[in-house]
């Protein structure tokens, strides 16, 4: 039966190519639709836990004067605080070993908590995302953005100032505003990975990275992520856990998520909201959750036309497949029947032919996707392919097979084999 299916496929190769192209387009649309849905859900799922059902406040674009996490945690009724971090550690994009000290191009090192590191893994163009283990010997693991000058495997020196004593007023550099002596302390980080352009990064805002100007009027879960691209600030990020033994300062930056205790009263909630407004734009968890769900549902609804398009494409290609040479194909099935095949042998033969067409369609879809990816057409869009995409494409194949078997099936049900043979005499 496989032999006859393959023969059937080869005999109608041009029409099968035409059908395969239609199916390939359906595969690409389906993959894009699933990727689109997943990208929304994949970004929402990691941050859901930061906005539990209770009360809380979310501060966007916090000012430099914002209180540290530890200070906020000491406030009554505050359950937990989390954010991305800026530090008093510095590196130079132009000098790996800081042999000439920090220049004017110094950049601060950023940090993320272990929880944030584990919650979301961005797309990496090389290497791996930050490990949750401690430092490798003396080397602190770090990741950088693609627009930095560093690559995976590089060892980069970072530096910070530590107070080592007080200066005397007689000292040449004495400054009444800052009467301390400092010593520059160096540490080394190992670049374990590079964050890909176009990736999302949890814990920092796009405004902080400089890739977007302002936050939305109704922020949602997307605002917890920064769009990483070559036009934004370069970043070097380390785990906060690896900075425990380094006497540096860690400041919240970008966004701060303040979860309040369950029993906080409405009056106290208002008080805290007013207090935090001095440090950035403040939003209620409830509004945040609602905005997030409104956005996700809106995106899912937008996918409906895409899915309709896919279904229409599949129906058209399937009907084309079964209509092509239907008389000739039925004639052939009649001949097989004469020679001792069962009447439903056509199902197996058509199935092999349809599967071959689906394989060809998959190959065409892969080629088209690669061409689109290599060209500028896709921009920074990253489309992945996983189990859900495969299931979506398999559904298309099954729908195609069922519909393409429909027309010959209907004809065969309505006519006896003898009548089919007579039609083709």
């Amino acid at each position, binding site marked *: 039966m496989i032999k006859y299916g393959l023969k059937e496929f080869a005999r109608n190769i041009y029409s099968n190519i035409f059908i395969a192209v239609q199916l390939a387009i359906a595969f690409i649309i389906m993959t894009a639709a699933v990727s689109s849905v997943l990208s929304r859900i994949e970004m929402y799922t990691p941050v859901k836990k930061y906005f539990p059902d209770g009360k809380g406040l979310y501060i966007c674009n916090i000012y430099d004067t914002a209180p540290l996490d530890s200070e906020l945690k000491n406030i009554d009724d505050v359950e937990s605080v989390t954010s991305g971090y800026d530090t008093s550690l510095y590196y130079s994009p132009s000098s790996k070993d800081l042999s000439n000290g920090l220049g004017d191009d110094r950049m601060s090192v950023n940090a993320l908590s272990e929880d944030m590191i584990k919650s979301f893994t961005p797309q990496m163009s090389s290497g791996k995302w930050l490990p949750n283990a401690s430092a490798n010997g003396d080397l602190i693991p770090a990741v950088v953005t693609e627009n930095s000058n560093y690559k995976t495997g590089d060892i980069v020196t970072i530096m910070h100032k530590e107070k080592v004593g007080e200066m005397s007023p007689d000292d040449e550099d004495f400054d009444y505003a800052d009467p301390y002596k400092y010593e520059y302390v160096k540490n080394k980080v190992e670049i374990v990975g590079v964050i890909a352009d176009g990736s999302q990064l949890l814990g920092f805002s796009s405004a902080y990275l400089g890739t977007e100007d302002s936050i939305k009027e109704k922020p949602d879960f997307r605002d917890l992520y920064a769009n990483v691209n070559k036009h934004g600030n370069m970043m070097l990020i380390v785990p906060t856990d690896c900075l425990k033994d380094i006497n540096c300062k860690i400041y919240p930056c970008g966004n701060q998520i303040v979860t309040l205790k369950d029993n906080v009263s409405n009056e106290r909630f208002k008080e805290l909201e007013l207090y935090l407004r001095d440090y950035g734009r403040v939003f209620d968890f409830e509004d945040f959750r609602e905005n997030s769900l409104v956005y996700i549902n809106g995106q899912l609804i937008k996918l409906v036309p895409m899915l309709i398009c896919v279904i229409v494409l599949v129906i058209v290609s399937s009907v084309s497949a079964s209509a092509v040479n239907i008389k000739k194909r039925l004639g052939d099935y009649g001949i097989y*029947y004469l020679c*001792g*095949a069962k009447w439903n042998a056509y199902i197996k033969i058509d199935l092999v032919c349809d599967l071959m067409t689906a394989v060809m369609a998959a190959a065409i879809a892969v080629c088209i996707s690669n061409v689109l990816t290599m060209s500028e057409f896709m921009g920074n869009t990253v489309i992945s392919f996983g189990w859900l995409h495969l299931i979506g494409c398999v559904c298309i194949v099954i729908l195609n097979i069922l519909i393409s078997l429909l027309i010959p099936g209907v004809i065969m049900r309505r006519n006896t084999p003898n009548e089919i043979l007579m039609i083709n005499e």
Partner: protein
Amino acid sequence: MIKLDKIIKIYNPKKANEYEALHGVSCEISDGEMVAIIGKSGAGKSTLLHILACIDSYQSGEYTIDGTLVKNLSEGQYAQIRNEKIGIVMQDFALVEDFSALENVLIPLDFAKKKIKNKKEKALEALKAVGMGDLSKKPCNKLSGGQKQRVAIARAIVNEPAMILADEPTGALDTKTSAEIMELFKRLNKEGKTVVIVTHDPKVAEQCSRVIEVSDGKII
């Protein structure tokens, strides 16, 4: 031995255009006979042959092949009869035109229920038996009418069935080619095969050992 006993065949039963094509037809065909079924157009001879070939059903009566009742069998059993016990030759050759002669003859071997070894060799032998051994690789759409009918006969005999049924096998052929084809059938009959030929041509009927005449759905 084939036995038909009071076979009634109705087309479109219980519909407005219901039509009784065979009215209680009975006959017997012994092993090794060469029988012609003749009659005018619409008499029911092709209907009779199609029932013999298990490609059409009947409403009542009994059709037995070597004592086995051919009725209410499963589709698989009907397919096995068509594959192993009967070889069918049609007027329009019923070949897959895109296939070569060899590929057409392989069809019954490919659809056989039991595994067959050396299929290609068997198919080539059948083609040689009908004088088409040298043209095995030629596509059927490049063959003449006579050559096509030879390929059809090769396909009909490749599984070594006991009975060959032919529906107007010379209907589309010229006189000379028709004679060649009839010689083939006679040779197959001499080799022991039962041959039943439906024809409207009296010259074809003359070459058979027995003639069954069908008229208005009855054997006369």
